[in-house]
């Protein structure tokens, strides 16, 4: 290698670095919308193309949900729909708002709402012409920040305790007697003694596992403001003990809700903690199933977290009023009148509006046991707002530690005390 080529290469590299620095320096500016950008749905008109993002990649093109969404395009418009898993969708929304290319409508998981509002990603419901009347207060909760409403929840799901009626009968367990943790454990012991397996649930790291843990956490009397209390530890101890005694599979620590459900469908497990969206699948199972509310520690029904998504309008930097008019038209079509019923039935949700919910229950007896849990459900973020994600991370870590301890009391306690969620 001659000196000259080496020198030239050196120059090229430093030139490249200098240009890179220059580019990086101007990356901060750009077309980021002003916080609280103006624009109002009533001042805009719908455009030819409306973009719609949702977290349901399982509903591919041509499925009933896809067609239902697309049928909501106003005259002269077409809806372009795309999907990604919850977390990815939120990240994509963040980048899109930054770049000024946000979609017209996004369907966002409810615990993400306060953080999305805090990062100024969302237009207010008023601005975007979204009607929120007639929505249950507990379901609307996650979308209200400092008294201002953002978006609207169209439906909700909840967690319950499914059981395999054949196995319970074999073991001589009457599901109606399960009203607190002690009677649930007694039932588990009886079913395991007759040769079946106990219970499946999802304890996977992250929000999904926390969602499944919260009914036990709240049912113990614990509170999200302090996850190190003895009540919180007792909830961790309960699930950890099931793993330790072999009543729950050890894979619970890595199972997501679908994997936990598949285990229940094998017919080997007596119980499964899972969501209302499996109600139809449970009815089709090879064995007789039923569902009871998740019991609280000392009796009564444990509060379950609200599940489900909000339809929201992201903040727009250009032609905001037109984008909001698009959002207003599409969201109204999905959540009002006859379509509200179809929207929820297609997704396997119960409507966030009592009158539509009553219609659904009248149309199918599958829904009857889910009405009470949904009406009594508590928003995950209602108490803590955007602080919730941090607490949820700690709780997830504590739960993972507890399940790994497999019943060891000091291990469970350490897990809850040490959890930092970083």
């Amino acid at each position: 290698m001659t000196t000259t080529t080496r020198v030239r290469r050196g120059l090229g590299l430093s030139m490249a670095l200098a240009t890179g620095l220059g580019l990086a320096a101007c990356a901060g500016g750009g077309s980021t919308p002003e916080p609280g950008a103006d624009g109002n749905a009533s001042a805009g008109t719908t455009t030819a193309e409306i973009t719609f993002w949702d977290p349901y990649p399982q509903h591919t093109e041509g499925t009933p949900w896809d067609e239902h969404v697309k049928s909501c395009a106003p005259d002269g418009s077409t809806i372009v729909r795309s999907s990604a898993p919850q977390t990815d969708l939120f990240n994509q929304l963040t980048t899109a708002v930054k770049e000024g290319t946000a979609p017209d409508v996004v369907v966002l998981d409810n615990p993400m709402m306060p953080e999305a509002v805090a990062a100024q990603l969302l237009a207010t419901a008023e601005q975007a012409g979204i009607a929120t009347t007639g929505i249950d207060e507990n379901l609307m909760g996650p979308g209200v920040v400092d008294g201002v409403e953002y978006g609207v929840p169209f439906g909700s799901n909840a967690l319950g305790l499914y059981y395999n009626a054949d196995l319970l009968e074999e073991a001589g367990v009457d599901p109606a007697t399960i009203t607190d943790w002690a009677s649930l454990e007694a039932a588990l012991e009886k079913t395991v003694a007759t040769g079946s397996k106990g219970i499946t649930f999802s304890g996977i790291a992250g929000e999904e596992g926390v969602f499944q843990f919260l009914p036990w956490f709240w049912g113990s009397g614990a509170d999200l403001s302090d996850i190190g209390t003895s009540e919180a530890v007792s909830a961790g101890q309960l699930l950890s003990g099931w793993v330790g005694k072999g009543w729950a599979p050890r894979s619970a620590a890595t199972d997501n809700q679908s994997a936990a459900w598949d285990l229940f469908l094998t017919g080997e497990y007596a119980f499964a903690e899972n969501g209302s969206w499996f109600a139809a699948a449970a009815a089709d199972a090879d064995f007789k199933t039923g569902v009871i509310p998740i019991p609280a520690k000392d009796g009564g029904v444990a509060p379950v977290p609200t599940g489900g998504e909000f339809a929201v309008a992201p903040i727009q930097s250009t032609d905001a009023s037109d984008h909001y008019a698009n959002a207003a038209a599409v969201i109204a079509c999905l959540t009002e009148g006859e379509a509200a019923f179809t929207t929820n039935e297609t997704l396997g949700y119960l409507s966030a509006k009592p009158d539509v919910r009553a219609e659904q229950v009248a149309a199918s007896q599958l829904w009857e046991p889910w009405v009470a849990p949904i009406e009594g459900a508590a928003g995950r973020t209602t108490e803590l707002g955007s602080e919730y994600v941090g607490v949820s991370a700690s709780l997830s870590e504590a739960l993972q530690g507890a399940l790994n301890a497999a019943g060891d009391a000091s291990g469970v306690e350490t897990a809850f005390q040490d959890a930092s969620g970083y």
Partner: protein
Amino acid sequence: MSLLTIPKLAAVRAARVPAPAAGRRPRRESRWVAVAFVAPLVIYLVLFYAYPLVQNVVMSLHRFDRFSFVNGGAPFVGFDIYAEVASQPRFWDVVRQTAIFTAASILFQYVIGLVLAAFFHRGGFRMSATLRGLFLIPWLLPVIVSGTTWQWMMSPDTGVLNAFLGMFGADPVWWLNADNALLSVTIANIWLGVPFNLVILYSGLQNIPADLYEAAALDGADAWQQFWRITVPMLRPVTLITLLLGLVYTLKVVDIIWIMTSGTGSSQTLATWSYAMAFGKGTSSVIRYSEASAVGTILLVVALLFGFVYIAVQRKQED
């Protein structure tokens, strides 16, 4: 290194200046042509290598959250983020786990790859080519497939691995729990990396002249001596590049670990930690742009250091 040589450029230029005026024009033209040829490469390097790298470092020096990521205004905090990351109780655990994962993966991948390569190089038996093809399967399969299969095989309740161990009377192992997770993902990663080592080392073996072995055999060297006195020294350049590439590949592994454990327990490495923080995945859905960039930069620096070690060793070999 290159920057230090710049003063020499001035000397070269000075030497050129007295050149006859007539020769100047064509030279300048040819210089512009040269620039035009180099420009696409430089632009490509700047856009896709320098800019993201610099942006990564810039991010780790500013305190970003979701709001300031979107709306700008992240305050400059110097190396505070690095200090905060390093003072996390888990930081040194993660560094230790990364070191174990990387070292164990590379060591076993290389040894197993070398043994297999030597075995196939001796060849001479039927099906040798077919068998060698079969060994490439881990390389050809999408990681999502092999990762999920490993997770399924290592299921503590119904996995085939525990069923197999059970035949010898062993207690079932909880492969993917917090304590065993590192061992489990390392085993899967070794399996993934063997074909790469096998292929490179096999072609290295083919480049060793056969007459060396013949001569050694005539001198009465047994197989073991031939291996240590001929194969190992002749393979050194190939070994070096295999180990270095293996190191860089292994340091940044996210996929196989993520599919099997989501980086829980002892299977968290610097790469998975950075990924989890950058995208709000895994245990915590809190997004930590700056911390993720800091960990990413640390990883980069480590890989770069080993790159320099490689260049130094290679120079020494050439001399």
